[in-house]
């Protein structure tokens, strides 16, 4: 799949933003006054920036409000509804913490639950797609949820919690890669089933339907760049989870958390890039490519 920068930004930024809102809502770190203003501002800012980045991916962003209507069937619509609901429900808690120095736990807890479900819904947008076998697996949501919770805990200065969540994230990434590498074969889709000609013999593409590019090839048959997959996995694992986990063992300070954050975001960008670039869509079978 094509690793669109807008989608990488969306999933990384809104993930960590909603992750921060989970911990702020639960009251694990209960800042008041200016600290609350900055932290809630950061949570809302990151979550909002991610959603705006996602809007850049749309062909017709002016119709984006329609995306709130189909929550009964569509995970993308659910994500939009849940993200908005999280921000609305968390708002009294955030405002009261920042301006009246009184957290409102009820709004906080409800907002935290909604934020967690929002992150899960983001993951399900990809997990639901059966035509991309690497994504269509239980190992996909844990990567999204743990990345958001670990990054959020780090921003909330919950260093011990963040440390263990980073280690869990590392395990989730590895599990997703190991499972993912077998998924295409497990899906059972081959050029033989795609054409229905498997019973006659071995099937291969003789002539593609068009000599140029098209939307399908650009969007779903992304073969360039996979050759560095192994190195990028190491960068994603090291920078995204292991190094931040080690940095979080140092005495907490703004410096170490800022450094851990930069390292983590770099690693997660690599992880998300790979998440798209490595994912093979079964439509590639019709083009003799994957």
């Amino acid at each position, binding site marked *: 799949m094509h690793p669109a920068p807008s989608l990488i930004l969306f999933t990384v930024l809104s993930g960590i933003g909603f992750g921060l809102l989970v911990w702020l809502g639960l009251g694990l770190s209960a800042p008041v006054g200016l600290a609350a203003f900055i932290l809630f501002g950061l949570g809302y800012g990151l979550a909002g920036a991610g959603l705006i980045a996602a809007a850049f991916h749309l*062909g*017709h962003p002016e119709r984006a409000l329609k995306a709130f209507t189909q929550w009964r069937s569509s995970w993308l619509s659910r994500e939009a509804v849940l993200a908005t609901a999280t921000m609305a429900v968390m708002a009294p808690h955030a405002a009261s913490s920042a301006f009246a120095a009184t957290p409102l736990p009820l709004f906080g807890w409800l907002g935290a639950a909604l934020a967690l479900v929002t992150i899960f819904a983001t993951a399900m947008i990809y997990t639901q797609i*059966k*035509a991309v076998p690497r994504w269509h697996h239980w190992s996909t949501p844990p990567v999204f949820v743990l990345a958001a919770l670990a990054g959020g805990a780090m921003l909330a200065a919950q260093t011990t919690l963040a440390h263990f969540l980073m280690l869990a994230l590392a395990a989730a990434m590895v599990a997703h890669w190991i499972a993912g590498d077998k998924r295409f074969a497990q899906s059972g889709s081959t050029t033989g089933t795609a054409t229905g000609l498997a*019973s006659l*013999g071995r099937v*291969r593409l003789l002539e593609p339907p*068009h000599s*140029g590019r*098209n939307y399908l090839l650009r969007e779903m048959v992304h073969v360039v760049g996979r050759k560095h997959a192994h190195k990028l996995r190491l960068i994603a694992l090291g920078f995204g989870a292991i190094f931040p986990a080690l940095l979080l063992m140092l005495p907490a300070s703004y410096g170490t958390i800022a450094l851990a954050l930069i390292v983590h975001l770099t690693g997660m960008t690599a992880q998300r890039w790979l998440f798209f670039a490595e994912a093979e869509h079964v439509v590639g079978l019709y083009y003799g490519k994957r």
Partner: protein
Amino acid sequence: MTTLPTTTQKKLGLVIDLDTCVGCHACVISCKGWNTENYGAPLSDLDAYGGEPEGTFLNRVHTFEVTRDTAPPMVVHFPKSCLHCDNAPCVTVCPTGASYKRQEDGIVLVNESACIGCGLCAWACPYGAREMDGAEKVMKKCTLCVDRIYNENLPEIDREPACVRTCPAGARHFGDFADPDSNVSKLTRERGGFDLMPEQGTAPVNKYLPPRGRDTLDMPDLASMCDPAPENAKGFLGWLDRALERL
């Protein structure tokens, strides 16, 4: 609403005969022609006169080669368009309700004025049946020529999808799969029509007919008849052979 109907009154769709298709791409062109001038946004071309032309098409013809162990290889031309699946994954993922499957005839359509161009439906389709138009930025797909098949301004003979109407080989058939006596149901039954990628669970309505077995000639092994030149050639050729041998 992008939830799928549990049943549809009709199941309109195509039967594509892989035995008969000659790979002429006439269906591709007639589809593009009709659907550029009629329902919805035109199917744009980008860089049409430049070095890297590309365009939006609702139907494309791939060509595959089947290598067989005991027979010569077989070339199969393979037209591919929307299969109007009963369990269409493209419909349920749509966040705006722009994608829908019609209860009355089972056609999967896009309401282009509600499409935000997110592309998720194209990702969800295992067959590559949907393409985002490069100019209009809305999702385009086969409409089964919904503006032809019910169009009383057209002569009755033309009230079928443009690809079916134009096919010079008679490789494309249009009909109602819900009716067991329709032409398409009969063809599917008699010729062993099959689904593409059944393991994807999409329950496609369109069916493909397999290539028929090819004729085999009962003839001797030609290679054995091509003996090398006889050992003891006589006359001029024999002399030439011996002379060349000595060189």
